[in-house]
């Protein structure tokens, strides 16, 4: 018996030893195969410097896969952004110059291709469509071909100084009336199929862009239409005053009208015949998109309007950031977006740039019984140790901010951009003043669940470590006695949450809008599709045109479905907040517009209608011999890339 017992015990141990050996072997393989964690440089997101010619110098140096090498990014992002702010805030002279910009035409050099004539670009997912007029051509990196590579919009925003510049098809522009801009087009520009670029073709695109059913640029400039003045002159007519149209014209796609009108639905989805520096060769669904340099592209003076130097490009896609980084390491790709902070040191060259999206929580300022109180909102803002979160979760690469549009936006200044800071004692006092704490709340035991619930509604994997961040925020709020929870919503439900604002009460009958109900949205129940208070919902809101106009209309107007603000406080000069928005938006560029926008942005900041965190940073992986600088937004132009060898 004893011998048998010993045999059994020994067999048992042998089994455990063998199992442990196998698991350890697998573990060792895994650790040996993975890149060792390295210290991420505590530097700000790389931003393009003042001069395009010097773009390479202060930006991140090629970071070889050595733990000790640090990209040479500016040590102080604040200094960089201040420089940017000084250059971007329009002075009266700058505003007039920008409004009537007449860049000198540049002789067209022949296209010179680099020795390495093919580039592989890796994005997160396959484009939904390649048609620039398609609803599926949305403003994200996977849609870069249809958005800004195959089709040149009228204008572009220079990432170094935030000034508006013309692309290939435009020579100059001037404001004729408050609601009319005149664009002088360049001669000799053609579409990819040889159709001429002229005022009629531009009108075709403008009419599409201004149609509310078309989406796209409509969200930036509202209803517009084109009017032919002569063969190379077209007027843009806005339904309402549009003083910053050249800025919003960065979202004005154009396609060869004859081709488009005769193309089938499939052809319209699978191709863009634009005037951009590259044309679509083939889309192999699920595999890759091939584009090639348009040899008749007419470059312009702007950096982003230069002739392409790489002959062919392929867009491929991989859902995992590690795989995208691995492709760079294995030299299967030359450029990859969003490789993640953890892979920064793994690739031959890594650069960071903002993607213009402000990761923020939108408070339900109207229907939530507690979030409708300013004291509660202010307390919740003060109860977030944002600096600690940025250092812990993002190695200091993200910067805490206090407003919903990035630095450099007209309307943003030091005061209304400042982070709220961390003051839990003050937060508790504010909550008590606002009557948040119920009678049976016991601060000693912190039985927070007796108080009114406040949720954070978020989506999964929207922003790197977003969920971890919100869990931390909620933990901090609970310390204050707030009954807080994070709820991850399925994508469709998350959209419903975002789109259940006051604008849902706007009705249209026979083409006539009735906004009465929207203006009185606070007196009604929360609208469908969400149907109840959205508490805080998370969003990453972009503003590529860099003017507060967009955020005011989108997030602070009674008439937008995304908004939870409707005349909650007065505006300026005795106007309601809604009236102030319209007044500011109609004001021409200059100090007066800036003053009004800053006033409204200050109200947004002080009222805590939002809880902004940071401008999201995008990490790009690149081949060692690729030269390219990230922009302030995630708009990618392959003609700005070149191989150095």
């Amino acid at each position, binding site marked *: 018996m004893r011998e048998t017992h010993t045999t059994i015990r020994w067999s048992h141990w*042998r089994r455990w030893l*063998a199992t442990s050996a196998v698991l350890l072997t697998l573990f060792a393989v895994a650790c040996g195969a993975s890149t060792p964690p390295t210290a991420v440089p505590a530097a700000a997101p790389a931003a393009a410097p003042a001069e395009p010619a010097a773009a390479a110098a202060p930006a991140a140096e090629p970071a070889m896969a050595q733990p000790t090498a640090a990209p040479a990014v500016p040590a102080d992002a604040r200094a960089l952004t201040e420089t940017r702010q000084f250059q971007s805030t329009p002075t009266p002279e700058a505003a007039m110059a920008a409004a009537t910009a007449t860049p000198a035409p540049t002789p067209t050099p022949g296209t010179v291709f680099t020795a390495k004539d093919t580039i592989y670009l890796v994005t997160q997912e396959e484009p939904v469509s390649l048609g620039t007029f398609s609803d599926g051509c949305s403003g994200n990196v996977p849609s870069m071909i249809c958005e800004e590579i195959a089709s040149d919009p009228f204008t572009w925003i220079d990432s170094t100084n935030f000034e508006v510049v013309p692309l290939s098809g435009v020579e100059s522009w001037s404001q004729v009336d408050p609601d009319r801009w005149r664009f002088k087009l360049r001669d000799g520009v053609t579409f990819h199929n040889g159709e001429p670029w002229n005022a009629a073709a531009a009108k075709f695109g403008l009419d599409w862009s201004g149609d509310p*059913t*078309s989406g*796209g640029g409509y*969200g930036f400039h509202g209803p517009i239409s084109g009017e032919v003045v002569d063969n190379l002159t077209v007027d843009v007519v806005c339904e309402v005053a549009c003083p910053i149209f050249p800025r919003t014209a960065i979202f004005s796609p154009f396609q060869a009208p004859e081709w488009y009108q005769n193309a089938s639905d499939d052809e319209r989805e699978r191709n863009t015949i634009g005037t951009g520096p590259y044309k679509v060769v083939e889309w192999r*669904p699920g595999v890759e998109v091939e584009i090639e340099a348009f040899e008749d592209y007419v470059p312009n003076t702007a950096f982003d309007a230069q002739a392409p130097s790489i002959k062919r490009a392929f867009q*491929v896609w991989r859902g995992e950031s590690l795989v995208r980084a*691995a492709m760079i390491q294995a030299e299967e790709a030359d450029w990859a977006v969003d490789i993640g902070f953890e892979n920064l040191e793994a690739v031959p060259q890594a650069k960071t740039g903002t993607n213009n999206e402000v990761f923020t929580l939108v408070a339900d300022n109207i229907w939530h019984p507690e979030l409708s109180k300013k004291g509660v909102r202010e307390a919740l803002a003060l109860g977030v140790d944002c600096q600690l979160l940025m250092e812990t979760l993002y190695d200091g690469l993200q910067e805490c901010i206090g407003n919903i549009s990035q630095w450099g936006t007209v309307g943003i200044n030091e005061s209304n951009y400042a982070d709220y800071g961390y003051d839990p004692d003050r937060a508790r006092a504010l909550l008590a003043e606002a009557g948040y704490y119920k009678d049976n709340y016991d601060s000693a035991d912190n039985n927070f669940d007796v108080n009114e619930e406040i949720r954070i509604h978020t989506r999964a994997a929207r922003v790197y470590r977003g969920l971890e961040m919100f869990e931390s925020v909620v933990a901090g709020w609970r310390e204050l006695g707030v009954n807080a929870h994070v709820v991850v919503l399925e994508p469709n439900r998350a*959209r419903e949450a975002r789109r259940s604002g006051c604008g849902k009460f706007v009705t249209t009958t026979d083409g006539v809008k009735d906004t009465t109900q929207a203006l009185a949205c606070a007196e009604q129940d929360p609208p469908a599709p969400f149907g109840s208070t959205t508490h805080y919902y998370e969003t990453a809101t972009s503003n590529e045109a860099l003017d507060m106009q967009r955020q005011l209309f989108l997030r602070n107007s009674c008439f937008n479905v995304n908004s939870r603000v409707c005349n909650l406080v007065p505006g300026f000069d005795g106007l309601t907040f809604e009236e102030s928005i319209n007044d500011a938006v109609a004001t021409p560029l200059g100090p007066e517009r800036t003053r009004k926008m800053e006033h409204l942005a200050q109200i947004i900041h002080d009222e805590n209608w939002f809880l902004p965190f940071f401008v999201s940073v995008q990490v790009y992986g690149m081949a060692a011999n690729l030269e390219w600088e990230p922009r302030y937004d995630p708009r990618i132009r392959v003609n700005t890339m070149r191989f150095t060898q």
Partner: protein
Amino acid sequence: MRNYMIRRIGHSIFIVAGLMGLLFLAINVLGDPVELMADEDASQETIDALREKFGLNRPLHIRFADFYWDLARGDFGKSLRHRIDARDMIVDRLPNTAALAIVAWVIGMFGIPLGMLAARRPRGFVDRIVNILSFAVISIPQFWLALMLILLVSVQLDLLPTSGFKGLGPEGWKYMILPAMALSPLVMGRNAQITRSTMIEEIAKQYVATARSKGLAETAILYGHVLKNASISIVTLMGDELAGFMNGSTVVEIIFGWPGIGKLLIDGINARDLPVVTSSVFVIALMVMVINLAVDLIYTWLDPRISYS
């Protein structure tokens, strides 16, 4: 047999029709595809215009009737998201999913001889090794294994491409290796386990003792008698696994950029893209039914006592 086949096909049509109906209701009740289709910041006018453009503003019962009518004609419609024919999208990707599934499944069949080796001498050295390894590979998440294979085989050793797809011809075979290696261990482990346990069960039966006492060689007993009797369970599992692969190995497809049905279906569900979802589910259901039918027919060959007459 013929009557049986006809009955099975009839049942299958009925099941698929019911499944399609459930899908339609689920997609339409659980969310609005137009809200997902439009840009996040799109105006309500844009949303309403899109809804009208795709006929989604019609009453549900009318859309339901149109849906079945189109289904009967084999018209799945155009993808709401991509605006191209949904059936074409599936047909393009089906061979990719099938090829990867078959390769991974064939590799997984190596688990059967391993299970047989283990069953020859229960609690012996080989049995213990097979047992440990099969449990280990079943426990490894495919996601992790796929990423580790990329880092080790492609990045560190530079033996194979990290990911991608270059067709199913000679040029594309090397792109299939890592995805198949990521998929097959789980199948291999399960096959080894099931084979081992069913064979041990069979070996313990009286007829094996009789065969041994008659002087038959051990190999003849194992392969001629035991394996055949044990193979009902093995074939059932193999059919189930192949059917599972045909659903599309979504995680592996995403990681390796393999253009298969799995990712298409997941994207379609997330986007409430009814045409893509119905065409994917229809094709997958069809394949699963064919596989189940084949398994049932194989039963009759393996065990003459089974008859569908």
